């Protein structure tokens, strides 16, 4: 039967319970009747299952059902076989004995086709969906305390590439669904980043776009919290991931990067349930880099100067005129300070969460109260979350249903002096020379003061309310309406003490507000003809309005460090006002969908959605999002119907398009200014800004996907396979094109870039042990291979370079190859001796290296890097760059194992990323520490180089050039970052977490009124296997740059408790 009903399965089971209970009165006792007591548990989690219906006899008659705590008491004839049945669980038979507590373990039904999914706001079984979707149970997300649930989704869904590349509490890593979807790069150097393309999150039916606001926390004021950090993982019932365009097309423009449906928990037990879960966890900073401390550092510097200066006399003179080296008994220079230790620390954190829920199909409710506290491993950073969410559903008559939810959350975080994702002050102060004194009232490092004494407090308050109505007008015809309002306010208060701000303390106050008003109303109709032809039609319209505005106030020169106000003494030092990043967007859409299936064997889905957005060009206001999907459940064919090894098997194919608005309204309409207040004929002037030509034809990005899928279940749940191949074309991407000066404008945003992703996703679930045994073991292995290819650039160009002005690590867009290519000098080793240095055969001079500005040239010698002279002119310069690696990973995925025996369970989750290039700027910085033995640019830390194979003497075959030749750092620049020497393979295999859980037997806890009590011990991020020589191959930017001032990823050790009353 086509399951179009909106009632969750377990609630439906409860309804049946009453029917059953009524029936039990009618059972006539003929044989001796015994009373059987027992508890029904879920196999695996050992949690009691409420609402399990117990049948007996032939034909089966219901005799009872389990209560909220899983207990049951039934009166049955002696020796009668009991049959336990519950939605979502496999049935189980068993004989009960009087006077004995019977323990029943039901296993979750291992048929993925029976899972309930939501596509385009419509509930379906997976059997009738034509798109590619994956469901993750909330149970998989409970055992590791995290500030953002995204961290735990890593490696759980094939094709969803999550890199937890920041350890900053409250921030999130990057999510890419099915490969690259953007070419937009901002910033330069190590902090250049790729525009985030996170999937759309639909939380209880209300879309929330995580791509706005928070990513700009990079270089801008504001709390910068990821909106998903405000959702407690304990409140999540399930997360459904929609991957292909058929599944996402009905979400329109915002679904182009995939959709994640987050469902929070609801009441489903007649008897109210109180659940508590709490964690106590310790965050452990990663191993800090080793540095040379104290006198050893001074000696290393002196020795370097004596050996690598042109003349010893000159070196002596240099040393003697540098008090930092010569004046070794001066207390200011006679230290061995552990600078890194000042900033990184172990922290002790906790979370608490209480859920009260209950109710039945007529009326149910839930309230969730959560507290999360995490102090960052970098001092002066933390994240606290306070949440209260409630929802309730009321169904006064069977045809009418109303659901309402209110979620309030408050996130409080401190970024220290950094911007959340990076901590440049910690980065700078942490690599200072150990000879300098540790900060006290006076500090030798302004950065250290900034990192430790900067007073930063951010609050993000979020209120989300929504109301759903559903009325069945006639049988099969539903009218539904959803209305939601969301408001987020972010404030940042920042105080910089006078000591680090030119003797003027500075107060900064930021606040922003965003509001989203959203409404969706629609009709859906279901009709089945002779139980063979099943038809569904639905139409809905969607309206949304979103605005954002931020203001900032900055005031220098408060009375003192201790008195931060009153503010407003002298306007000269003040700054502030409304920031120029305000937005006001409207979106109106209309969508329709039709679905037909024949006996649930052949399924056809069609859908269409038309969006009108206020930020697209004047001439192209509408975007259309069509989709087609087909499915063939071939296991229902007569040929295969009697194959016992085949549980299920189906083939899917789909095509669809998502269109996503891009750019800003100013790209489409231009900006106008007042010509600097100029006047003409005493009238104020105004005119268009010549910087950017408006593009009235600006089109939204179009994201077209083809998808083919195979789903197989074999040998009674032993092996389940899901495979998908896809081709995703991203077209009309925005790219700035420079215009000739004769046009009058300097540049225009065009729509002429395109790329495509082709990939294969796999997901295997294997249960090697028989289901009836005491041991229960499940292994899952999933992954995706994704290759992206750039297919088009503006003006028919074949190549385009994005120049990096800071590090010279340019990125190439080139048609026909992977979209983002690193462009670097090709390092093939080190010149072992002078004789091996390349020579120009015509002139006899050794190969030359050009200075950064191309005006000076230096001769190469032994110990210098062997860079490929690609054009054969015996001059190493920008023309010799090679197209090197790809910053985007080729293969990503996860591996997990769940082993259970009785009350004990062991859960191990791992994730892997393979074939990806990382630019190891962090290791480069270690060598670069030797560039300045005199400490002229502020003495830096020296890192022991024993583990690196560097050149030291004539004839050495080394990997790294001579690090001690400090004069060469200025001319040859052997340790420049833009070379393949620092491009490394960033493949890694990471154990995400290991959880050992024990469920305390109910008999011991019941006297306290506790129906279920589970304790667990979790270690997160314990091991990472990689050949990468830097600190952590995951802790790098989306463009594969290892920032040395990035926020390191912590390890945690957790002790947790789940209690249910």
């Amino acid at each position, binding site marked *: 039967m086509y399951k179009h009903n909106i009632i969750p399965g377990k609630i439906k089971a409860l309804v049946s319970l009453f029917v059953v209970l009524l029936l039990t009165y009618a059972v006539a006792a003929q044989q001796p009747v015994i009373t059987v007591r027992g508890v029904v548990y879920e196999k695996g989690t050992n949690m009691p299952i409420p609402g399990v219906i117990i049948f007996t006899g032939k034909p089966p008659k219901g005799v009872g059902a389990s209560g909220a705590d899983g207990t049951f008491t039934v009166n049955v004839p002696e020796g009668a076989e009991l049959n336990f049945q519950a939605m979502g669980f496999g049935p189980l038979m068993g004989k009960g004995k009087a006077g004995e507590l019977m323990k029943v373990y039901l296993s979750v039904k291992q048929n993925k086709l029976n899972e309930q999914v939501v596509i385009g706001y419509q509930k379906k079984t997976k059997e009738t969906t034509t798109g590619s979707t994956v469901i993750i149970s909330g149970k998989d997300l409970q055992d590791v305390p995290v500030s953002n649930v995204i961290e735990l989704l890593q490696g759980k869904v094939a094709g969803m590439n999550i890199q937890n590349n920041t350890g900053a509490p409250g921030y999130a890593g990057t999510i890419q669904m099915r490969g690259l979807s953007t070419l937009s790069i901002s910033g330069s150097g190590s902090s250049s980043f790729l525009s985030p393309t996170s999937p759309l999150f639909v939380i209880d039916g209300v879309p929330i776009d995580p791509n706005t606001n928070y990513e700009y926390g990079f270089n801008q004021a504001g709390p910068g919290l990821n909106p998903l950090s405000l959702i407690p993982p304990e409140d999540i019932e399930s997360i459904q991931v929609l991957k292909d365009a058929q599944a996402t097309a009905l979400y329109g423009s915002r679904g182009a990067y995939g959709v994640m449906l987050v469902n929070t928990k609801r009441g489903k037990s007649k008897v109210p349930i109180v659940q508590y879960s709490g964690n106590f966890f310790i965050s452990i900073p990663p191993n800090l880099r080793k540095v040379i401390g104290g006198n050893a550092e001074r000696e290393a510097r002196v020795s370097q100067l004596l050996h690598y200066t042109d003349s010893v006399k000159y070196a002596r003179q240099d040393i003697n005129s540098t008090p930092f080296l010569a004046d070794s008994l001066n207390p200011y220079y006679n230290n061995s300070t552990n600078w890194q230790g000042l900033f990184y620390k172990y922290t002790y954190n906790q979370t608490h969460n209480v859920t009260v829920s209950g109710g039945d199909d007529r009326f149910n409710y839930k309230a969730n109260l959560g507290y999360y506290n995490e102090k960052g491993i970098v001092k002066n950073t933390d994240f606290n979350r306070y949440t209260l969410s409630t929802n309730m559903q009321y169904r006064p008559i069977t045809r009418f249903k109303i659901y309402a939810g209110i979620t309030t959350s408050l996130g409080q975080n401190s970024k220290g002096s950094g911007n959340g994702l990076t901590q440049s002050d910690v980065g700078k102060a942490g690599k200072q020379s150990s000879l300098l004194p540790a900060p006290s009232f006076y500090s030798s490092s302004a950065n250290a003061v900034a990192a430790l004494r900067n007073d930063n407090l951010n609050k993000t308050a979020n209120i989300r309310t929504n109301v759903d109505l559903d009325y069945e007008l006639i049988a099969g015809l539903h009218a539904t309406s959803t209305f939601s309002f969301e408001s987020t306010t972010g404030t940042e208060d920042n105080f910089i003490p006078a000591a680090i701000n030119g003797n003027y303390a500075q107060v900064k106050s930021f606040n922003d507000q965003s509001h989203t008003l959203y409404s969706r109303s629609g009709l859906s109709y279901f009709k089945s003809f002779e139980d063979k032809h099943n038809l569904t039609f639905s139409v809905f319209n969607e309206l949304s309005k979103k605005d954002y505005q931020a203001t900032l106030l900055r005031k220098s020169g408060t009375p003192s460090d201790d008195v931060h106000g009153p503010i407003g003494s002298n306007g000269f030092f003040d700054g502030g006002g409304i920031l120029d990043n305000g937005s006001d967007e409207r979106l109106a859409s209309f969508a329709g969908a039709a679905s037909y299936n024949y006996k649930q064997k052949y399924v056809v889905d069609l859908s269409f959605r038309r969006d009108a957005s206020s930020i697209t060009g004047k001439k192209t206001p509408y975007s259309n999002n069509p989709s087609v999907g087909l499915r063939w459940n071939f296991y229902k064919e007569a040929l295969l119907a009697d194959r016992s090894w085949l549980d299920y098997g189906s083939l899917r*194919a789909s095509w669809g398009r998502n269109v996503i608005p891009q750019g800003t309204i100013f790209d489409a309409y231009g900006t106008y200014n007042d010509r600097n207040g100029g006047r003409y004929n005493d009238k104020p002037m105004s005119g268009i800004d010549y910087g950017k030509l408006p593009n009235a034809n600006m089109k939204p990005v179009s994201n077209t996907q*083809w998808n083919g899928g195979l789903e197989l279940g074999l040998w009674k749940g032993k092996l389940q396979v899901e*495979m998908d191949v896809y081709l995703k074309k991203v077209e009309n991407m925005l790219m700035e094109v420079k215009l000739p000066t004769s046009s009058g404008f300097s540049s225009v945003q065009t729509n002429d870039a395109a790329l495509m992703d082709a990939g294969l996703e796999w997901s295997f679930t294997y249960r090697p042990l028989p289901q009836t045994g005491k041991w229960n073991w499940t292994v899952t292995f999933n992954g995706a291979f994704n290759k992206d*290819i750039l*297919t088009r650039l503006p003006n028919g160009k074949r*190549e385009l370079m994005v120049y990096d002005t800071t590090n010279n690590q340019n990125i190439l867009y080139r048609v026909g190859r992977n979209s983002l290519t690193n462009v670097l000098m090709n390092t093939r080793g080190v010149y072992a001796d002078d004789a091996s240095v390349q020579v120009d*055969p*015509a002139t006899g001079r050794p190969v030359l290296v050009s200075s950064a500005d*191309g005006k000076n040239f230096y001769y190469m010698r032994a110990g210098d890097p062997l860079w490929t002279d690609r054009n054969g002119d015996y001059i190493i310069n920008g023309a010799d760059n090679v197209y090197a690696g790809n910053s985007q990973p080729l293969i990503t995925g996860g591996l997990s194992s769940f082993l259970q025996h009785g009350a004990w369970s062991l859960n191990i989750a791992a994730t892997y990323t393979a074939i990806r290039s990382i630019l190891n700027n962090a290791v480069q910085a270690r060598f670069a520490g030797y560039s300045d033995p005199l400490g002229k640019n502020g003495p830096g830390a020296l890192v022991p180089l024993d583990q690196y194979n560097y050149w030291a003497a004539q004839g050495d075959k080394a990997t790294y050039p001579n690090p001690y030749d400090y004069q060469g750092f200025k001319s040859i620049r052997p340790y420049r970052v833009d070379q393949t020497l620092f491009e490394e393979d960033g493949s890694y295999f990471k154990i995400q977490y290991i959880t050992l859980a024990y469920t305390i037997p109910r008999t011991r806890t019941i006297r306290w009124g506790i129906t279920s009590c589970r304790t667990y011990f979790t270690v997160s991020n314990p091991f990472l296997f990689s050949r990468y020589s830097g600190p952590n191959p995951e802790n790098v930017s989306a463009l594969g740059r290892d920032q040395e001032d990035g926020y390191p990823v912590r390890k945690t050790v957790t002790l947790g408790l789940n209690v249910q009353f």
Partner: protein
Amino acid sequence: MKKSNQLIIILIAGGMMFSHACVKVPADVDFISPKASYSQTTFEPVLGRTTLLPDDPTANIFNADNSTSPLTFKILHMRGASTGEAVDIFNKTFPVQVWKEAYTGLETTREEVEKKRTIEQHHLFEVREHSGQFVMWRPMDLQYLNAIKMQPDPGYKFDVEVSNSGGSKIIRDMELKPMRPQPYAPSAIDPVTGNSQGNITPYLVSSVKVYNEDNYMSNGDVIVVFHKDPASTGNTLTFEFRDSAYNPINPKLFNSTRWEDILHHFGPARFTPEAVTYDVAYPIPLAMRQTRYTNASGTTANVMFSYDRIANGALRMTALIGMNFAIYEPGDWKMVFWFYHKNPDFRDN
């Protein structure tokens, strides 16, 4: 079991076909700009020297206009500029001396220098395959150069094909107008006509007091004469100083000259009352790189002769004569510094 395997194979094959049918991947080929071109199209190398065009590392004569590097360059259709007929000599290869190891200026014997050089076969005029630089080679036997037309002849025209995987482009009518050989530099011989004009003078003549006059010499008061016996086969360079009567001046009179450091030579300087002779390796300078013996760009050798005398007021005065020069042919060369109309005063006041 078997059937399931077959089924899986069919499904995978179907999936691959499905994806193949839709995927149209553009070719991963280079970009070549139609505007890519040389900014210098006429080349006037002096014959008898190995010349890199351009020899200045900062100069770039090919504007690739963002074409993907490396490009491949090829000289096509070398022809006489006036006749338009193909010229055979540029299609042949000749033995030339090339460097295989870098010259450092620290070599102590001629053998050490010769070990760094070797003989290879090259065309006389070549384009470097990927950089687009041109090289005019000096053949070991200079007789071969006789077949080459020198200015004032209009010389030769040629085309250059530039290509990469994105396509190719031909740059037409580039000009090669060789100049007549000049075995040494600076030279008083006009490179086009072969006429002699003017004198060669040192770049620096400073504090050289004129004998019996209260005046000092300037650059024009010293003439430098280069001389080689055409039959000589040695590798020496001799400096001579002559007064206005062309009588030799003892080089030891230049008493503050750092004789062992003025020139890259092998073995000690050999003094006679008339001259000082060095064992050297040709050409001078050996390579185009800056050493202690060259000027800043490494294109010429730099010699400095000096002497001290006590001038008026009991001050010590250092007289300097500095000369930048290059010699391209081996042999027993002689450089004469001729104080041709006034004599220098070596006496103390």
